[in-house]
């Protein structure tokens, strides 16, 4: 083996696939040949220097190819949609609860003022509401039937207008459905509820000012509705 072969000898030596028998021959040569030895040492040093490379973290990137992304969307859309709509859904449940808490129903006997419609209020606190309902549900013939019907119509109108405003608010908040926007929607509902309760209270007081019992019930009920979450 002559040292004109250093190049291939060093390369061979660094090759993991070199058979053991050939490696032994190479090692024997390295012991005798100064040039090959120093060249091999240098090559090993260079390799060691390069191998000091430290793995770098992959930056954020889009791993899913376009074609796979469609499959992904259909799969995760429902979750995504739910998440997007969660604040809005909560708000709608809330507004339903608020508006149906105070319900005016006409029966043969006249008007039934039902505070807390079972369906939605159940979700809040069924037993307490049922109790309150039993206690406060006022069923009596009102002398001012016509006036009350007008009130009912006015309330309905108000609710429609409120619902429209509510939807507008919800839609405008959809683009950034964050906790902040939820707060805004809730604050809006809170304000509407307060207004409605004031109207209800004052109207009821006018309507039934001759009946102290009823006034007391309505006031209790109004405060109950107002302070329920």
């Amino acid at each position: 083996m002559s040292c004109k072969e250093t190049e291939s000898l060093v390369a061979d030596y660094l090759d993991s696939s070199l058979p053991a028998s050939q490696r032994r021959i190479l090692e024997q040569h390295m012991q005798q040949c100064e040039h090959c030895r120093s060249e091999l040492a240098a090559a090993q040093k260079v390799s060691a220097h390069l191998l000091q490379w430290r793995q770098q973290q992959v930056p954020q990137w889009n791993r899913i190819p376009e074609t796979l992304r469609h499959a992904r969307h259909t799969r995760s859309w429902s979750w995504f949609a739910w998440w997007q709509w969660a604040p809005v859904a909560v708000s709608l449940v809330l507004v339903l609860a608020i508006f149906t808490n105070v319900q005016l129903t006409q029966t043969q006997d006249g008007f039934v003022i039902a505070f807390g419609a079972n369906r939605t209020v159940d979700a809040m606190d069924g037993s307490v509401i049922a109790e309150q309902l039993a206690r406060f549900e006022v069923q009596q013939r009102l002398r001012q039937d016509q006036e009350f019907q007008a009130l009912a119509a006015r309330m309905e109108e108000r609710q429609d207008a409120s619902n429209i405003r509510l939807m507008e608010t919800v839609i405008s908040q959809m683009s950034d459905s964050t906790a902040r926007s939820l707060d805004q929607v809730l604050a809006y509902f809170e304000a509407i509820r307060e207004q409605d309760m004031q109207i209800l209270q004052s109207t009821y007081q006018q309507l039934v000012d001759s009946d102290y019992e009823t006034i007391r019930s309505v006031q209790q009920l109004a405060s109950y509705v107002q302070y329920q979450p």
Partner: protein
Amino acid sequence: MSLADQDEVLIGAALEGSARAWERLVKRYEGRVYNFSLRLTGNQTDALDLMQEVFLGVYRNLHRFRGDSLFTTWLFRIAHNKAVDMNRCRRLFMQQDQPGGNADGDDADPYDRVVSNDPRQDPAVVLIEEQGNSVISRHLESLSWDQRLIVELKVFQSHTFEEIAELQDIPANTAKTRFYTALRKLKSILEQDHVM
């Protein structure tokens, strides 16, 4: 690694349209591919481009993977080819801008440094952050493209010369000579830099 986590299972699921399985598979190898790309291109922007090309190529050819070799072997074959393609593209692109350049000889090729050096002159390009790595990167950049590639395959990917010869479609002896020349060149640069 659980059975469900094996490459073959993830590949099967990805082929059936599971984005989750594909993502898992990518996450397993993206680090290796990214660092491979980073060493070859010398900057994060090109490295990210190359890595994306590699995984897009893997995804498009996934149905062709037969499992008669390791997935990593197959993946890095694609990575190698994409790197070569990318370099070829840059050369063609640069040749239009700089007529008269000659493209022969490992050391004399003026386009060899195009890939790594040009983005560095652009301040918008994110450079290699790791300080030790940027030194190594600078040393690798002193090599021609072919030399850098063979150093990558031999030192970092631990390929044998036979494998390199097959991958690059060159005689094994050419691969050995090229590798040895690259090491010698690195040695002289490291000496200048007082690294050795």
